[in-house]
């Protein structure tokens, strides 16, 4: 059982004075201290969190309305700019960086009374699927510490599985919220591209980066999304939120009559039989509840991973150009001229995976290869998006596994980058086409959690959350 009530209930209790924000922050901080062996957290923001809690408690005493997240503690992935601790993106090159301003998502959460208590571990710059690419340490899976928690939002996911806070924030560029959510048995939402402002979040691949909540329940994810989403002047790609918002999913009704497509192509691609069994059990329950389950083919989808591993490194090589050792971040003191300063600062400051991706990106964007790789990949991307759009003409939702397997062992894939990339094979499609997708816990296999993934069409985040909540209830 969780030590946290639902986010809405916590907020109501703080507002009514039956629990104080200070008690909640202390509870989160002590849970963090008790769970240090899992290494989910890079740093706490305890001084600022305590100050904010005290100020919220003061305001409650004065009878002021705090907001919809009054006193609710949360943990941000360490690629969010947050006051009260360094922002490192788990990289050596950003070690020591203090945020001059906060991410819009964090500002919006704070405006409703939420309190950031800590920064969570990740694969450095969010490059990876296990947290093993963190320049600092590897987070352990709360269900079995010999296994990875997934990644790149592995620290954020482990933190919720460990019950350290009511919710955490992650980023999802190719599956980085959904895959760790599946590996640790919690809920992870990747909203429609542009629904949550990326201002103040360390950029990875700008055409697929999204921000989303990691929670214990779908209802909690909906509340957090509702607060964070919508247009922001500081991010030109942001879109308006749904007029009804995303919270209060009680009008969800029944799954009866909903058309849900199982993606044929996801049933191959090395899908472990035990993960398949969990998916089948889930679709059987949906069918028994009246949903129409239809197998549907997206023939170009198996190419999504190859597209992703061109597009993503290309954008990474460009986005990481700003780490030049001059304005912020690690700077090689021994350099004698500017060129040497760039090369040494970057060579010393970036970890292996960041360098690998910069190299791939530079290769596919370099003259002579641009058309063959980058342009071809972006055109195949169009084909994949068209196939998703055609699928959503026939069905309301798509369902499938999140990853081909359950969590893998720490160290198992580190020597083979391509094998590591394959853990994203079922999640990257949603990123390339920008559609929303969610991972919800669906069962356990060999004492490790398995999630299932549900996807919906563009801007159908509310409908997605509703079906996810219904499925969550069916799975009990």
């Amino acid at each position, binding site marked *: 059982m969780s030590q946290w009530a639902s986010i809405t209930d916590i907020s109501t209790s703080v507002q009514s004075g039956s629990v104080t924000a200070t008690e909640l922050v202390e509870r989160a901080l002590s849970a963090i201290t008790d769970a240090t062996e899992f290494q989910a957290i890079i740093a706490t923001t305890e001084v600022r969190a305590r100050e904010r809690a005290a100020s919220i408690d003061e305001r409650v005493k004065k009878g002021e309305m705090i907001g919809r997240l009054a006193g609710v503690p949360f943990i941000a992935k360490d690629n969010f700019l947050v006051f009260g601790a360094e922002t490192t993106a788990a990289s050596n090159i950003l070690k*020591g*960086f*203090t945020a*001059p*301003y906060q991410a819009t998502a964090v500002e919006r959460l704070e405006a409703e009374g939420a309190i950031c208590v800590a920064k969570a571990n990740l694969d450095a710059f969010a490059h990876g699927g296990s947290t093993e690419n963190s320049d600092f340490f590897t987070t352990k899976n709360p269900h079995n510490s010999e296994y990875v928690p997934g990644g790149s939002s592995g620290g954020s996911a482990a933190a919720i599985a460990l019950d350290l806070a009511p919710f955490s924030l992650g980023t999802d560029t190719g599956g980085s919220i959904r895959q760790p959510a599946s590996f640790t048995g919690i809920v992870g939402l990747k909203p429609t*591209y542009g629904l949550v402002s990326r201002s103040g979040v360390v950029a990875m691949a700008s*055409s*697929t980066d999204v921000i989303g909540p990691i929670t214990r329940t779908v209802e909690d994810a909906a509340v957090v999304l509702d607060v964070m989403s919508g247009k922001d*002047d500081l991010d*030109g*790609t942001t*879109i308006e939120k749904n007029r009804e918002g995303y919270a209060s999913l009680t009008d969800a009704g029944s799954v009866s009559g909903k058309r849900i497509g199982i993606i044929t192509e996801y049933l191959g691609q090395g899908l472990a039989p035990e993960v398949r069994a969990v998916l089948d059990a889930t679709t059987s329950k949906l069918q028994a509840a009246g949903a129409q389950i239809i197998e549907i083919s997206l023939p*170009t989808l198996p*190419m999504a991973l*190859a597209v992703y*591993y*061109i597009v993503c490194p290309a954008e990474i090589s460009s986005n990481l150009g700003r780490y*030049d*050792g*001059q*304005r*912020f*971040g*690690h*700077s090689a003191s021994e*350099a004698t*001229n*500017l*060129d040497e300063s*760039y*090369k*040494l600062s*970057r*060579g*010393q400051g970036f970890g*292996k995976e960041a*360098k*690998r991706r*910069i*190299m*791939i990106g*530079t*290769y596919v964007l*370099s003259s002579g290869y641009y058309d*063959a*790789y980058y*342009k*071809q*990949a*972006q*055109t*195949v*991307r*169009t*084909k994949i998006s*068209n196939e998703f759009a055609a699928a959503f003409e026939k069905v309301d939702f798509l369902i499938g596994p999140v990853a081909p397997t359950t969590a893998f062992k720490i160290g198992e894939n580190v020597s083979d*980058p*391509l094998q590591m*990339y394959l853990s994203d094979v079922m999640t990257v499609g949603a990123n390339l086409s*920008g559609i929303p997708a969610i991972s919800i816990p669906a069962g356990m296999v060999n004492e490790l959690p398995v999630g299932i993934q549900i996807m919906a069409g563009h801007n159908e985040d509310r409908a997605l959350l509703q079906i996810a909540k219904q499925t969550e209830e069916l799975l009990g």
Partner: protein
Amino acid sequence: MSTISRDDILKLAQLARLELSDAEVTEYSKELTEIVEYVEQLNSVDVTGLKPTFYGSSQTNVYREDIIKDYGYATEELRKNVPSVESDHIKVRRMIG
């Protein structure tokens, strides 16, 4: 099939301004060759008549007035992160011989 040689890696590293160790050059030569082999399957996809998708959203340019806005943080805060500062300026290495 493309092989990415050590020379190719050195050239890319120069373009990307990355100092690599000898071991890294060898390693990346092998790994990039494997990754490029994997992504070459994309050449088999028929994309006749399709245009590339370069952006995450279908929005075109988003315009705004060019006005000065106060985002509430001081130059001090930005300067804290600068590796080398001299009398209010960011100090960089010599560029010209």
